[in-house]
């Protein structure tokens, strides 16, 4: 069974330096959409990948885009410099992205991320304005729809501050 909270809790517990992006970030910001994967933006460097491996330990993580579905193995360093890593796990699908469409690298995404309390842990989530930019840039009909939802949320947020 998919457990977004389970995945995020593990990443947070291992101090993975990540920003929640994509459809699940839209859900957190208030979108009514349903998505089948958790997208997180990370740096594909050694410390981050080591913490990712610790977080996924015991979850039967496998490479999703490879038909043989190989396990992650035990060497996080072989993924240093990757752009993306697409995985299935016992808690659901999770995609690690080195950059976000319309925005750029992890550092750019991270610069305007917001920290939200999710139950007993906190998660950094791509900022609402940035997420709208990314969804508009992706340009698929479903992305435009989510972007429109988020624009309504943004307008409401601005109104409530004035």
């Amino acid at each position: 069974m998919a457990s977004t909270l389970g995945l995020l809790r593990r990443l947070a517990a291992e101090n993975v330096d990540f920003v929640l992006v994509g459809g699940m970030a839209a859900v957190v910001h208030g979108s009514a959409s349903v998505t089948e994967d958790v997208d997180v933006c990370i740096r594909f460097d050694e410390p981050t990948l080591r913490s990712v491996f610790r977080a996924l330990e015991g979850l039967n993580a496998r490479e999703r885009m490879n038909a043989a579905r190989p396990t992650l193995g035990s060497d996080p360093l072989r993924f240093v410099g990757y752009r993306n890593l697409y995985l299935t796990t016992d808690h659901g699908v999770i995609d690690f992205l080195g950059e976000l469409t319309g925005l750029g690298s992890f550092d750019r995404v991270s610069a305007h991320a917001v920290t939200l309390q999710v139950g007993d842990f906190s998660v950094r989530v791509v900022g609402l304005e940035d997420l709208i930019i990314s969804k508009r840039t992706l340009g698929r009909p479903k992305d435009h729809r989510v972007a429109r939802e988020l624009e309504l949320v943004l307008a409401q947020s601005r109104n409530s501050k004035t």
Partner: protein
Amino acid sequence: MSRVKLAPSEVDEDIDLDLLEYLLTLTPEQRIERHDAALELVKALRKAGTEHHGFDPRAVASAGGGER
């Protein structure tokens, strides 16, 4: 959190504003829990549809607009 009222425009016909307003009353944790429950329902309904038809109807639907 109190109920909010979104200001729609004419382009929002396909957006469920009532649902969106309800979601804004939830905490981030509640939104994720609600999402995961909805996803499980979607998966169960897809499975039921596939078993009923004997194939995955989504494959047919997505192929409909393709090139020959």
